[in-house]
């Protein structure tokens, strides 16, 4: 009953077109990760601030971002921010800002658990030896915390590769958008989107496996 004449040549014929979309996907993901790491640090600092108002801001950002759909956030950044600030935002910029904001809320938790993973005794040893709180944070806590945050940050990168496909909705020409454009002209959605799914999988799966291995090695130390 499933008689279908596969026409993979329609995909190969547009290979370069799709790959330039992949390039955009990777650029968006990398840029967003960098931005989200900075944003995550800011949220984490707000969360741990001595001032209640700042803590409240940090916590609120985290709660709002974690409890609304990412697609809605993206549309909000793209359509609402320009109205509020009276500026035009490029779709690409909106995508990066929207994704970065979303991911920053999660990365702030990564930082926090990285810091909390350092045993209290290590800090007390430093304190007894006379190191100042700042010295002990810089020399004892941070180096150990960073090691613990690297695998989760890499996982965030994998997530961003997938989330960046949402850019298609606001017509950022990453690979999913390119696929939509292609299938609109070659009328071959099956081949086109299968190919795109395979591309995502071939990038994300090895990364995810590598990260899992990396995490296990960190835990067994």
């Amino acid at each position, binding site marked *: 009953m499933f008689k279908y004449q596969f026409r993979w040549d329609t995909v190969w014929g547009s290979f370069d077109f799709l790959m330039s979309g992949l390039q955009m996907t990777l650029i968006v993901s990398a840029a967003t990760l960098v931005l989200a790491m900075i944003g995550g640090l800011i949220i984490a600092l707000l969360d741990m601030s001595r001032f209640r108002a700042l803590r409240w801001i940090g916590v609120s950002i985290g709660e709002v971002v974690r409890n609304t759909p990412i697609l809605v956030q993206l549309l909000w950044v793209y359509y609402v921010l320009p109205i509020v600030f009276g500026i035009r935002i490029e779709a690409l910029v909106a995508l990066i800002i929207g994704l970065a904001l979303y991911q920053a809320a999660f990365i702030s938790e990564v930082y926090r658990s990285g810091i909390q993973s350092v045993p209290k005794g290590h800090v007390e*040893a430093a304190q007894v*030896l006379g*190191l100042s709180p700042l010295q002990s944070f810089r020399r004892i806590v941070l180096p150990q915390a960073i090691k613990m945050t690297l695998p989760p940050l890499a996982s965030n990168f994998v997530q961003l590769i997938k989330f960046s496909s949402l850019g298609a909705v606001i017509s950022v020409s990453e690979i999913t958008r390119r696929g939509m454009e292609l299938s609109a002209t070659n009328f071959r959605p099956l081949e086109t989107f299968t190919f795109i799914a395979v591309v995502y999988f071939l990038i994300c799966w090895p990364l995810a496996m590598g990260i899992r291995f990396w995490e296990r090695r960190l835990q067994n130390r």
Partner: protein
Amino acid sequence: MSGHEADHPMSATPIILADGVTKRFGTNQVLTRVTLPVMERDVVCIVGPSGSGKTTLLRCFALLELPSEGRILMEGTPISTAEPDRAIKTAARAVRSEIGMVFQHFNLWPHMSVLENLIEAPLRVKKMPRDQAIAMAEKLLAKVDLADKRDAYPARLSGGQQQRVAIARALAMSPKVLLFDEATSALDPELRREVLIVMRQLALEGMTMLVVTHEMGFARHVGTRTVFMDRGEIVEEAPGAAFFDAPKTERAKRFLQQFEEE
């Protein structure tokens, strides 16, 4: 009675002194008006049942906990109270690294080599030149018989070796007093000896020590004074072996019986 009391007549100032220290966690009173002086070259051993407040007392001396009432003094200067004022905070900062502590679980920094563990505080706190710090660290490692582990990472060492590194790390700041919190409890029996030997060597060299321990042999033979704590109070205090030969209180007798049965 023994020689060591003649070494420091009553008028001498203790190196460290807990002066009427009470400690509460919430409503749970863990220490009750503990007064304990530690004189120069003293090796005071604190023994007592689990939960009697030994660790808490040591942590008050190490300035890791604030007493709820009472004070900690170092050579006569208050360095810790319930609500330390500016003068006390300044005094504490000045003498903090002169009170060394050895923890039950070593607490070496795993991302640093043995040598780096030893030189970190001298470099950052004392601003000692690097080559001088390294030379001193090497001497200390030789002293704890670990000269060959200089560049190893803590994870590669046995528990006994890690604890000896931790002792060397504490010594690197040339403390006036060393606090030990059950330094051998986390170790397999066959590894305890190597740590106890180092501790005894330190005692023989005249290091002032305050030692929480379950090693009754160490308390009897190396300690100059034994302090028995129960339910947050010092119940009994006696010079060296006297506590073991002639405990005065019922509670101490019962406590010591457990060790005879072993």
